[in-house]
């Protein structure tokens, strides 16, 4: 072959991928549209002036060009634009120009294992008027609650209890079992989960209400459904109503009696009809409200590449009525919720994450600000709100050579960063280029301090002082082999890490391990003790904080796991007394679905998709086993 032929052959393989082309083509359309249209969402809030500033960054002042037809809104002056109501027709036009992502709802990951990465935490607590669940296991009265992130904000899980009755959801069997707790537990009721194509994830319990979530799939769409039951008489649960919203279930939170549900909804642009808003905006079906969301509750995000909405709805759990809804064009996969704000995060290709902030108050949801941070977020624990500031820990990826073609080696450099943003999601402080070539494995924010673990072969645990939002500082770092996937405050200057061991030389990961860090002096964090769980290489506690029992009240840490070859299934329980003490190791069989451990009074319970076991909380001797029917 001649030089020319060889060169041609090799050069022909150099192409961009379809995704880049779409992106550029879309960008070109946007530039084109800036000449012809005004896109401004309506803001009803008092901070509309601030919002305008944020929006102004994303949408250029339009110029009207003679050769193009003027839009209907072109008559409005730019100054008025921030208050312009966007109507269905504007929304239609905007969505129509986006290229479809996938149409089928493909995010039904891990649905059978209720421990979805999307993560609701399941805790059942009676949220009394004087506040709620503590963030490290929510030990309210004499029973343990779901491990959650923020005090006062409940997260959904597969098991809930109020200390008297246990409600456990079996995804495999599509049933919710209602069992009276005690040394001899008694199953009193079973709630079947209806719908052939319905998959249930998790639940909440609040006073006499039980909410069970799931996603219902039909041939071309998905709906997130919340079934609300009256369980004032536990043996006779009564379904009161059903609230549903378009899209796949992403996450939810319960604050008091107000439920916030977040879903991701994709539109097939081919099915859109301008006259029928229900074909291009999300629909909500809840009590009196049935149909397309109002146009003024829809916002076009700063970055929206695909016709996909993040839908947030606020419901009253007592009667299932809709309090408010907000939809943003631009999907979301990570959700953080404090008592006052919901933060949604969506990572864009090219390693930036778009952050959206919604103020929440008694069921009302209001979009407040949009911003971005460099890098990707690990999970909800990478986000925190404190004193009006929002803090993020990210891993930043930079591609050095390409990987769009199998002939090339991709080199991706990583580094890590911490960002502090104000209420308007503008960056006020940052620490960047931390731990190059490593990525974040776990994060825990605790007031003025943040602790996070990065890992490649050796795991530094960083302590960051965030007292001054404009000037965050790393004050300490501790290098240890292995890594922690989750960090839990464990009272009194202690931080518990749950993760895995790793070989210092090769980085090869090993057994699951627990570490206890002494953080009483943040500049001098030490590892007080560690223990490896022999022959356990995997536990759901590594991807789901709700699968872990962490109780500082009773000094217990518990989780279920198994070895690499899917053998040796066990639920292990440890205490900490100057060092880790193994309290129990309970053998379980394989294929039992979701496993959760919790205590009520003096008994310890282990629930799976099939049965409930009761142990003495001191001796961990089996008292009784109940098979669910």
């Amino acid at each position, binding site marked *: 072959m001649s030089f020319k032929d060889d060169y041609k052959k090799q050069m022909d393989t150099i192409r961009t991928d379809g995704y880049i082309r779409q*992106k550029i083509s879309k960008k*070109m359309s946007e530039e084109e549209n800036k000449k012809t249209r005004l896109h401004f969402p309506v803001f009803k809030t008092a901070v509309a002036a601030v919002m305008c500033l944020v929006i102004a960054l994303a949408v250029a002042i339009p110029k009207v060009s003679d050769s193009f037809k003027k839009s209907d809104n072109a008559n409005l002056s730019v100054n008025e634009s921030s208050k312009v109501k966007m109507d269905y027709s504007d929304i239609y036009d905007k969505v129509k120009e986006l290229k479809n992502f996938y149409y089928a709802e493909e995010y039904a990951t891990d649905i059978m294992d209720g421990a979805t990465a999307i993560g609701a935490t399941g805790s059942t607590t009676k949220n009394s008027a004087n506040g709620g669940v503590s963030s490290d296991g929510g030990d309210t009265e004499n029973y343990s609650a779901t491990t959650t992130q923020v005090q006062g904000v409940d997260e959904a899980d597969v098991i809930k209890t109020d200390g008297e009755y246990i409600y456990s959801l079996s995804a495999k069997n599509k049933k919710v079992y209602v069992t009276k707790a005690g040394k001899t537990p008694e199953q009193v009721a079973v709630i079947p989960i209806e719908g052939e194509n319905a998959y249930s994830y998790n639940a909440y319990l609040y006073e006499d209400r039980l909410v069970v979530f799931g996603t219902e799939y039909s041939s071309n769409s998905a709906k997130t459904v919340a079934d609300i039951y009256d369980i004032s008489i536990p043996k006779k649960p009564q379904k009161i109503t059903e609230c549903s919203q378009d899209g796949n279930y992403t996450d939810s939170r319960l604050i008091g009696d107000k439920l916030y549900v977040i879903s991701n909804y994709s539109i097939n642009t081919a099915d859109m009809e301008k006259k029928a808003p229900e074909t291009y905006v999300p629909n909500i079906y809840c009590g009196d409200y049935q149909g397309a969301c109002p146009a003024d509750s829809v916002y076009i995000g700063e970055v929206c590449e695909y016709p996909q909405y993040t839908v947030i709805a606020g419901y009253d759990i007592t009667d299932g009525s809709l309090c408010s809804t907000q939809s943003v064009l631009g999907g979301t996969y990570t959700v953080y919720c404090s008592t006052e704000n919901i933060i949604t995060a969506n990572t864009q290709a090219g390693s930036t994450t778009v952050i959206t902030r919604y103020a929440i108050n008694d069921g009302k949801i209001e979009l407040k600000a949009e911003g971005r941070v460099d890098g990707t977020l690990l999970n909800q624990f990478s986000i925190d709100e404190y004193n009006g500031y929002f803090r993020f820990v990210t891993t930043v990826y930079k591609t*050095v*050579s390409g990987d769009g073609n199998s*002939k090339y080696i991709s080199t991706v450099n990583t580094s890590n960063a911490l960002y502090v943003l104000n209420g308007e999601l503008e960056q006020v402080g940052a620490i960047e280029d931390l731990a190059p070539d490593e990525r974040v494995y776990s994060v825990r924010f605790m007031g003025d301090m943040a602790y996070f673990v990065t890992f490649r072969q050796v795991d530094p645990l960083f302590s960051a002082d965030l007292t001054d939002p404009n000037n965050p500082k790393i004050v300490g770092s501790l290098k240890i082999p292995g890594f922690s996937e989750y960090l839990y405050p464990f009272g009194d200057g202690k931080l518990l890490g749950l993760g895995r061991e790793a070989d210092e030389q090769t980085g090869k990961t090993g057994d699951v391990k627990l570490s206890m860090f002494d953080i009483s002096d943040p500049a001098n964090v030490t590892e007080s003790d560690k223990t490896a769980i022999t022959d356990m290489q995997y536990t759901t506690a590594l991807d789901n904080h709700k699968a872990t029992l962490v109780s500082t009240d009773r000094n217990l840490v518990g989780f279920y796991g198994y070895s690499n070859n899917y053998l040796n299934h066990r639920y292990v329980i440890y205490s900490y007394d100057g060092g880790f003490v193994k309290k129990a190791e309970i053998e379980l069989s394989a294929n039992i679905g979701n496993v959760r451990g919790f205590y009520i009074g003096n008994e310890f319970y282990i629930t799976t998709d099939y049965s409930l076991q009761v142990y003495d909380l001191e001796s961990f001797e089996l008292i009784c086993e109940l098979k669910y029917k």
Partner: protein
Amino acid sequence: MKRTVETENCNFAHPQRAFETYADLVYRLAFVRTKNISDSEDILQEVFLRYMKVWENMQSENHVKAMLIRITVNCSYSLKTSAWFKKTEPLDENIAYTDSPNESNVLTEVLKLPLKYRTAVHLYYYQGFSVNEIAEILKINPSTVKTHLSRGREMLRKTLKEEDL
């Protein structure tokens, strides 16, 4: 594009159509110049956004092509001087662009050539332009083009041992 300007002599030059037709051309040239996928993608976008400002003046198909090549060359210059470009690592010279061990790694060798030589080689051998056309497109002297080409060939002959260069 949401709106197409329906004037006869403008259709062929329309940005979206130009993008569909010439995205690969631009991308490959950008790649030859920057040796870097991520820069090439950035340049691809930049080229067409810049093109959108001038497309209405295009006289012919060739004019479109020439304009896109010129913009690409200019873009890669400005990219090259930016601080960001300086931070990126040079292409790994051990990467093979061919699966077959018998095939000479022609592309790698071309990419090793100095910028001006490899640009000329690419436009001549891959895009099929003549010396005069290249001169016209890049707004340089035809004899300069000839020099770049012959020096590039000489260097390639040494490493590739090809007779038909």
